């Protein structure tokens, strides 16, 4: 075989490509010989953590993945649920952390591009995206650069594509200083019957590569390493940054959907991580077939590319389709109509082998399904991290608490101005939020609401994770991530249908890190089971380490809920003077991990708020029944900053104040800023108050009527009294202020 490696060199190269010696031995065993260079690259990528989930696979089995509405669970490019009236929604979240840390604009942009390809691969038209972001604190110029760049990149890609960005979340914490998180979620819509699979089948069918040319993008790291030792001449160091081309992707969306609609394809897959190797071997593995691919047929962007480079390139905006020879001309005509390249690069075989050739010469030949299915699965060691006892034993009650109304008012404005609480408008103003005309609730409320055009229905979507809680208690933190997403969706009137997740952790080979991962998966699973909400897709991102220590465990949840009647949707904005303000749920003194502690005392410690899942569920059900009965005029959950921040946000959004009396017997700080879970600030018309309270009684959920909407101040009896304009002045300009006065990104200087 061409590209042969000597038995002496191969194990060394294998280690340099990230394979463990035992993994290399397994490859030799599968092949019955030393792998060729191309084979070794292909295995090393497919058996990498990113593609094989070798450290997480077992833990992920805890997730509930089935349910009445699930049309496609984990295992395909995206999960799919039925949302009624024959419509289905596909969604998934994915990380692009490491590329974004090198080049934030392109890293984030190509992250959006990748997740959107996962959606239309399923036959769904991308209809919305969300993003979950984590950075270090913005007093550091590098963090500002990353933040500005990532936001610009997300907007730059999504806006050009014409997919609205409707929500997300962002936190700033020193824990992410050396390792930002950029998680992108995309959602698509389709008729149920159009659900497709990334599968190759039918001996003699043709493999068609559609879209962009193939360059050496994304293989800089590994290939430079290898080329120094094994190539004739040391290649110049190439940056492994991929540049996104959203225009090409827009054409791909239109062409692929037209191809699928016309029934012209046998299967369709996207090229993501590990490029052609991954999509081709997964499609072959699903179909139980073999593939024969000739790299000389692949349109190259650069000269003298090697077979392995073609096979592992991560050039963006490419799709792989399987077509019958009879439909080839029609399929290629559709691509041409959309101005896209399409090239037959190989065919489906009945041998079950993945053969790669360069012209006449075979450079790789292996059992196709061993790439995707035979990757090792590990049972990593785990130990409860030592830091937990220390942080959890901290008692927030040992710190002094403000009691004077003037001090409390100052604390409220400080918390409102905290980068983790303040208005996110600076971010989403850079995103097209409305294209496609489905966004009924724009970003800025708890969940975005998107209508299912042509029906009365809508979906509500939110992505959430408080990493600080997960750091203090990974099990509870992950439960809260789920509960908060469900709560945000419920506040809009959506009944949770399914979630996707993106699990961001440090190095899983460290037992303490793996323990936090395992606990988080367990917490999220338990919450999902209690709510009867399945996990239909997701992504794991390990090795997120910041200067040698892991980031906060950050298991982000992306939740989609359904509103049967879109006109019943609710936002957080207070509406009319005289409306009655109700607090659903009961406040306890739970200051551990709170924004108050962090902002006022600079402390991140204590036990996070408890999550009593049955109570949480009862409250969501009560809220949803009330919304569906048309009794609720606004609803907003209490998250970071507690009830005081929730009230302030409702008032700012509605441009109208409130007079409130909190009837707990806690001290003022706990009453205002405790982050007890399962609480919702809602309003109803005065004449509906009785019906609403009756409904809550019948649900046996704790609630209290706390006040009335009106005026231009937020007055909380005995505690504080602040003008609306003072609240807005604290909450609105923080992000813009933090990034202003600073050097703008060089990206911004690029035309276009």
């Amino acid at each position, binding site marked *: 075989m061409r590209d042969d490696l000597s038995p002496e060199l191969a194990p060394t190269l294998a280690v340099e490509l990230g394979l463990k010696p035992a993994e290399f031995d397994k490859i030799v065993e599968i092949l019955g010989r030393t792998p060729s260079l191309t084979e070794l690259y292909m295995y090393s990528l497919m058996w990498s953590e990113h593609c094989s989930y070798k450290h997480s696979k077992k833990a992920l089995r805890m997730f509930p993945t089935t349910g009445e509405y699930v049309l496609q669970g984990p295992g395909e490019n995206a999960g799919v649920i039925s949302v009624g009236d024959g419509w289905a929604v596909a969604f998934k979240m994915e990380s692009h952390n490491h590329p974004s840390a090198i080049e934030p604009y392109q890293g984030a942009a190509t992250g959006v591009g990748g997740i959107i390809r996962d959606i239309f691969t399923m036959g769904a038209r991308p209809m919305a995206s969300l993003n979950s972001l984590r950075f270090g604190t913005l007093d550091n110029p590098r963090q500002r650069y990353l933040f500005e760049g990532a936001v610009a990149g997300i907007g730059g890609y999504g806006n050009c594509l014409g997919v609205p960005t409707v929500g997300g979340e962002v936190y700033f914490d020193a824990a992410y200083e050396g390792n930002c998180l950029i998680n992108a979620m995309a959602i698509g819509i389709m008729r149920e019957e159009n659900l497709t699979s990334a599968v190759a089948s039918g001996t003699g069918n043709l493999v068609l590569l559609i879209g962009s040319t193939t360059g050496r993008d994304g293989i800089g790291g590994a290939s430079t390493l290898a080329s120094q030792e094994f190539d004739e001449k040391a290649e110049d160091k190439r940056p492994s940054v991929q540049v996104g081309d959203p225009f090409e992707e*827009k054409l791909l969306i239109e062409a692929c959907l037209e191809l699928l609609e016309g029934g012209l394809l046998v299967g369709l897959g996207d090229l993501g991580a590990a490029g052609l190797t991954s999509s081709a071997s997964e499609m072959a593995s699903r179909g139980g077939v073999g593939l024969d691919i000739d790299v000389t047929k692949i349109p190259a962007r650069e000269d003298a590319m090697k077979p392995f480079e073609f096979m592992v390139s991560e050039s963006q905006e490419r799709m792989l389709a399987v077509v019958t020879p009879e439909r080839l001309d029609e399929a290629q005509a559709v691509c041409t109509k959309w101005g896209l390249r399409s090239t037959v690069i190989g065919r489906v075989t009945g041998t079950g082998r993945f053969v790669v050739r360069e012209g006449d010469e075979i450079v790789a030949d292996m059992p196709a399904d061993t790439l995707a299915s035979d990757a090792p699965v590990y049972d990593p060691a785990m130990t409860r991290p030592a830091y937990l006892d220390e942080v959890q034993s901290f008692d927030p009650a040992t710190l002094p608490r403000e009691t004077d109304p003037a001090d409390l008012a100052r604390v409220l404005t400080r918390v409102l101005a905290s980068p983790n609480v303040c208005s996110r408008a600076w971010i989403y103003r850079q995103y*097209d939020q*409305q294209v496609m005309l489905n*966004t009924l609730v724009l970003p800025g409320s708890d969940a975005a609401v998107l209508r299912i055009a042509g029906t009365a229905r809508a979906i509500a979507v939110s992505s959430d994770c408080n990493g600080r809680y997960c750091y203090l208690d990974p099990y509870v933190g992950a439960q809260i991530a789920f509960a908060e997403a469900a709560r945000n969706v419920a506040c809009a009137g959506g009944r949770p249908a399914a979630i996707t997740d993106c699990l961001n952790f440090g190095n899983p080979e460290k037992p303490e890190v793996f323990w936090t991962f395992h606990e988080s998966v367990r917490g999220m699973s338990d919450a999902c089971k209690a709510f009867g909400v399945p996990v239909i897709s997701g992504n794991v991102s390990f090795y997120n380490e910041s200067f040698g220590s892991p980031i906060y465990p950050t298991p982000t949840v992306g939740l989609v809920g359904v509103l049967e009647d879109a006109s019943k949707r609710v936002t957080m904005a207070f509406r009319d003077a005289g409306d009655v303000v109700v607090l659903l749920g009961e406040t306890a003194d739970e200051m551990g991990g709170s924004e108050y502690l962090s902002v006022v005392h600079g402390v991140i410690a204590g036990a996070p708020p408890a999550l009593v899942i049955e109570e949480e569920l009862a409250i969501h059900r009560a809220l949803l029944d009330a919304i569906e009965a048309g009794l609720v005029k606004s609803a907003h959950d209490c998250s970071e900053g507690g009830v005081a921040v929730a009230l302030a946000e409702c008032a700012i959004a509605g441009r109208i104040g409130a007079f409130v009396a909190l009837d707990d017997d806690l001290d003022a700080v706990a009453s205002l800023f405790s982050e007890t879970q399962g609480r919702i600030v809602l309003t109803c018309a005065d004449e509906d108050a009785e019906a609403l309270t009756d409904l809550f009684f019948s649900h046996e959920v704790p609630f209290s009527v706390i006040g009335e909407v009106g005026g231009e101040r937020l007055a909380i009896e005995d505690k504080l009294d602040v003008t609306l304009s003072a609240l807005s002045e604290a909450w609105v300009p923080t992000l813009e202020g933090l990034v202003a006065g600073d050097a703008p990104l060089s990206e911004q200087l690029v035309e276009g």
Partner: protein
Amino acid sequence: MRFGVVRFPGSNCEQDVVIACRYLGIDVDYVWHGDTDLAGFDAVVLPGGFSYGDYIRCGAVARFSPVMAEVIRFAERGGPVLGICNGFQILCEAHMLPGAMLRNRGLKFICETVPLRVEPSVCGWVGVPSGTVLRIPINHNEGNFTVDPETLSRLEAGGQVVLRYCEPDGTRAPGGSAPNGALDDIAGICNESGNIFGLMPHPERVVDPEANGTDGQSFFTSVVERMAGV
């Protein structure tokens, strides 16, 4: 009365215009950028989005689409042509309207609903009295309209300035009300005879009262009414 909405490679608001027209009961269909025939259409819309990615300059490539020669002929015969956002940029690139778009002041993409004042103009696409303040979303990176001083005076004198960014009460801030920095707060202009109209805001996004408002309706219905002689 039938609207034709041109689909350029990369357009992404063409479906929105079609949905908006249908919502308003207007007969509408797509026109492919490669077509060379506008027979059967009574008005043409160049929609928003990013034609050809707008990588070189917004609208620079789309202007050369085969259909554009026909759009120019259609307009010369007095046919109503509306360019929304990228469509406006294409009209400028094609010299069907004067001026050009620079990057937004601040170099950020801006998506937000803004107040706009309807100016007294000769524009045939406007269906509300001048002085009306409308709230319509803008959504662009390059909407910072610029034009040389002589042409600006000509636009003013000829009633060709159709829409201006303004404060919520309809006044213009001394330092300018345009979030993108546009010259003289200009958000939309028309040609001398008023049949070609380009605007940066997206009226098709505010047509359905169930979704975000109705302030954009009149831009679509006025032409229909005028043609029907209402």
